[in-house]
């Protein structure tokens, strides 16, 4: 207790009221203003939303359809499942759902010459710029004029771990943690002004600081993963995606969920003991293992390729698998 009061007394630092009037409040004021301006500029820049293309919507929905069939096909009677499976496999192979069925065999030109792609890319760049530039400028301003300023004292004690958070830019080891430096005040504002903006601009505003963080992280990721996975939407070769989905669909096994529904119902109403269900499951498992031992090789391919789902980068592997399967059938 004694040591604590000594520490308190020693740090009875007084802050010049001019710091409050000319640093603390201006930083907050500028950040609020910049947020509002950014909101309006973003609204201006984004303009009218781009019209969705009917055919590309159809493309993605077709893929979704195959996915739903694989995931929830167990609710269908087996005949209904098989009909859909055969239909979708054929449609995918022939590229019936492709945006441009004739173009599937043509070699792809340079993506940079595709105006649609360049446009989406520019849009993304503009948005990223709108997010990053103002924050960089404010941070530079604070760093240049107010570096090393101590602005406020929090009214409660904190542990030493908070030092790096609250005293960024002030490299003293002894100062009490509840003092907040100018740069840290900037960060507190950056994350804390969210609800103030909601008050001023209403919900769904574009002044959100968290978005900056997202933009920065996706930008970093885009650079790391190369142009193939750029967040602005690199055009994928949909034909390849469809073919790999066809692979997944072809090996999807169907197990009807209603095979033993009568037994389940009887168990539910207590007409049969619960053990009957367990016995049925055991019997089914036995049957499956006895049949699958003969076709063990195919089941291993099933697991490996279903894990790759529709990821285009795994394409060569699943294509070669398809070839292997075809030759086996022949």
């Amino acid at each position, binding site marked *: 207790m004694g040591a604590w009061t000594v520490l308190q007394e020693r740090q009875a630092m007084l802050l010049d009221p001019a710091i409050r009037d000319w640093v603390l409040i201006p930083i907050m004021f500028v950040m609020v203003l910049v947020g509002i301006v950014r909101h309006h500029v973003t609204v201006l820049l984004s303009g009218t939303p781009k019209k969705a*293309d009917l055919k590309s919507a159809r493309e993605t929905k*077709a893929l*979704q359809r195959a996915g*739903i069939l694989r995931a929830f096909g167990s609710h269908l*009677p087996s005949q*209904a499942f098989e009909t859909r499976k055969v239909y979708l496999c054929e449609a995918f192979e022939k590229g019936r759902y492709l945006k441009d069925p004739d173009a599937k065999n043509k070699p792809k030109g340079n993506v940079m010459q595709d105006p649609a792609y360049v446009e989406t890319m520019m849009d993304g760049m503009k948005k990223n710029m709108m997010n990053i530039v103002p924050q960089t400028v404010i941070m530079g301003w604070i760093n240049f004029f107010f570096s090393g300023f101590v602005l406020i004292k929090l009214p409660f004690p904190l542990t030493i771990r908070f030092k790096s958070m609250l005293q960024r830019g002030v490299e003293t080891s002894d100062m009490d943690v509840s003092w907040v430096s100018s740069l840290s005040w900037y960060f507190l504002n950056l994350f804390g002004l969210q609800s103030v903006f909601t008050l001023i601009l209403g919900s769904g505003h574009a002044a959100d600081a968290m978005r900056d963080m997202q933009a920065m992280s996706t930008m970093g990721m885009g650079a790391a993963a190369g142009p193939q996975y750029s967040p602005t939407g690199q055009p994928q070769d949909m034909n390849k995606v469809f073919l790999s989905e066809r692979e997944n669909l072809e090996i999807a096994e169907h197990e009807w969920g209603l095979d033993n529904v009568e037994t*389940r119902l*009887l168990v539910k109403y207590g*007409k049969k003991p619960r053990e009957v269900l367990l016995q049925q499951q055991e019997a089914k498992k036995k049957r499956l293992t006895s049949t699958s031992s003969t076709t063990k090789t195919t089941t291993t391919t099933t697991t490996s390729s279903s894990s790759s789902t529709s990821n285009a980068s795994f394409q060569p592997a699943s294509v070669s698998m398809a070839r292997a399967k075809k030759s086996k059938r022949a």
Partner: protein
Amino acid sequence: MVNAAKVLQDLRASAERKPDVVVRLGKPLIISGAVKKLDADAWLVYEQVAIAALDVGDELLAHKCIEALEAKFPGSARVRRLQGMRLEAHGKLEEASGVYKAILEEDETNVLASKRQVMVLHAMGQTTEAIAALVKYLDINYTDFEAWLQLGDMYLSEHMYPQAAFCLEECLMLQPQNHIFHLKYAEILYTQENYSLALKEFCRVVELCKDHVRGLYGIKLCTSHLRQNPRLAKDTKATNQEDLEAIDLLATERLLAVYSSDKAAPSSKDSSKRWLESL
């Protein structure tokens, strides 16, 4: 006032169609002008109340809402769709269809307008055209289970049972937990005289929704058919004889139990008993 806005917002989020509630809550908001205090949400309330007002036939209120929206968003496709709905409410189907067609010419992906277009065709009695339009819509918007359900109903009205069954199968995949879809599918199968499959689907209904009376009746009907005609049940996937008897017994027992509760009307009690005895 705050509460009314909150309830309206909840109704919008859950997409429930309760026109009476919406009009009762929304009318004072709009007439007193208090709706303006909701800022951006105000326009959503206008749209919601406009549709509800058309539903309950409150023409003046609908007019007021649509006028306000028109003034705020001139030329918007969403507002024009509301105007189309107002024309529909007045019975001017041809004009409404023209409005929707104009919207779709500008933006062929407009989901709201294409759905309305289908329903206008349906209302005009051109079911074949409506089915064609709906099939085209579903080819693109595959995940819209309500549209599948509607298509199923249209096929049923044309007595095209296999097609209707297909639509209901899609609903089952998109909403597997909904016992109503299972029930409807089971009934279509029963109509197609596919009793063993229908029995399983009826069982599923009762499994999902305990003591579902319609499901229990379905089970009774299927089992009686299967018992009278054992060759129907020869399929390997069908229920075996022992389970069939047990399920039949269970359905009878549950039906009697449901009707013996105090809430059941005595007349329905008697008629159900007589029906069960007649099987």
